[in-house]
């Protein structure tokens, strides 16, 4: 049956998810389906619930109601850089190497080169600029080459060159079959997406893209 085929192939399927903070209802039956090899954008106004949706998608937050199905390893990049300012960049990498059970940090070092902060390995993250902290925040989500990437405004603080390199990297990963969900605020980024979903009044609506 076609629906069963679609369900099996989805990397991320969110169905009828509801979430409220106290009396404030944030998500009211949100649905999202992300197939393999798709770069999906989630847009919406401030406070629309985009970050809540992503935190539910990765299992960090429990929905009040609804179903979330994920397939494969997940890489999650939170909106604010979640780093320990006392630890160096390399210490972060080694800790997440243990968490992801990676045999080596070869891919992490490749990504440091791609994102342009390979020289910062021995520096404490508290000493890094906001943009470089965000690069490490993103790298932690990518270093185990997950099948599903959930990125919450991952390029905050990036300079234009790094911004462009991020989109080139995202396109390469998508072409290699990875599924990527990105929360974005920037209108000029929308053409990068295969599909754009607008979070409005707690539901996700399909938005036309230029692609």
């Amino acid at each position, binding site marked *: 049956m076609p629906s069963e085929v679609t369900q*099996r*192939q*989805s*990397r991320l399927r969110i169905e009828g998810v*509801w979430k*409220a903070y106290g009396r404030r209802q944030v998500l009211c039956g949100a649905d999202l389906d992300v197939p*393999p*090899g798709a770069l999906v954008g989630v847009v919406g106004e401030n406070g629309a619930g985009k970050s809540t949706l992503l935190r539910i998608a*990765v*299992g*960090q*937050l*429990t*929905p*009040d*109601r*609804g*179903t*979330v*199905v*994920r*397939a*494969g*390893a997940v890489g*999650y990049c*939170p909106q604010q850089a*979640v*780093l*320990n*300012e*006392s*630890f160096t960049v390399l*210490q*972060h990498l*080694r*800790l*997440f190497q*243990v*968490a*992801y*059970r*990676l*045999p*080596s940090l*070869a*891919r992490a070092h*490749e990504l440091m080169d791609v994102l342009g902060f390979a020289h910062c390995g021995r520096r*404490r993250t508290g000493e890094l600029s906001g943009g470089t902290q965000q690069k490490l925040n993103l790298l*932690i989500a990518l*270093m*185990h*080459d*997950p*099948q599903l990437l959930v990125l919450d405004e991952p390029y905050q603080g990036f300079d234009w060159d790094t911004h462009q390199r991020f989109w080139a990297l995202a396109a*390469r*990963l998508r072409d*290699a*079959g*990875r599924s990527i969900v990105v929360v974005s605020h920037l209108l000029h980024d929308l053409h990068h997406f295969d599909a754009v979903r607008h979070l409005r009044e707690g539901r996700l609506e399909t938005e036309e893209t230029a692609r």
Partner: protein
Amino acid sequence: MRPYPAAFAEMLHCTLLGQLRNRMALLLAVAFIPGWIAVARLCASDREVRFPLDSLGTEAAAQASHVSQVVNALAAVTLVTGFVTFMETFKAGEVDRRLLLAGYPRVPMLLAKVTAVALIAALLALYTVAVLGTSVSVRQLGPLALGLCGAGLAYGGIGLLLGSLVRGELEGFFLVIMLSLVDTGLQNPVFTVVDLSGLEVLPLYGANQLTLAAAFTSGAPWSHSLLSLAWAAATSAAALLVFHVRTRSHCAVGAAATGVPAPVTAAGPPEAAVRASLRRSR
């Protein structure tokens, strides 16, 4: 790479290095302990104080300034370990949750933090014994060090628990300071003029009895060091429980998905389909 030993070793290494880089923690450890002992030496009188030691069933006698120095040493050790452990746990909280979500094993993570607390408590105890030894003629150095280490362990455990439990930094600082003040104040033989019951339940009771007995008598109530260990174990277990509740996965593992391509340049963890099926009525 075996995940549990590697997870323990890496977390212990990072936690200890993080503490060493914490200038506030180092300043507190190096300057506050001798400073607070010096305050007692300068402010307390030389009159003799007699006080009961319930653990030995006897009375001890010593100069008020000496007793005050030992009590202040205990207070300083509790404040420094409680404060430092709380700060570290609180600051690392978000990253620890991210690590857990990424697959870092919980138990080695917490065991590494408890081991770091034990090492810090042991180092602080040795340092404090060395400082006390310059101004107080201590009767038994070994049990004194053990008592001070027990105090550090008990308050290190409390710091660990508060660091996982409270939402704001100020709440944690306030609780550590207030608890230490009440604990050391109620058990200070220089100030206590009436017999108080129920002191046994305080976190510092075992360490206080062992430290005072070691400093001023030839007896050593060794079993009382177990009370500090019990406090450290109970608070660490409670911290693990809080950590578990705050970070428990709301997802149950379901069937594996199909159509997953091979990694491009590096291998990720095994494939798994995760299903969160929560259909609670609102």
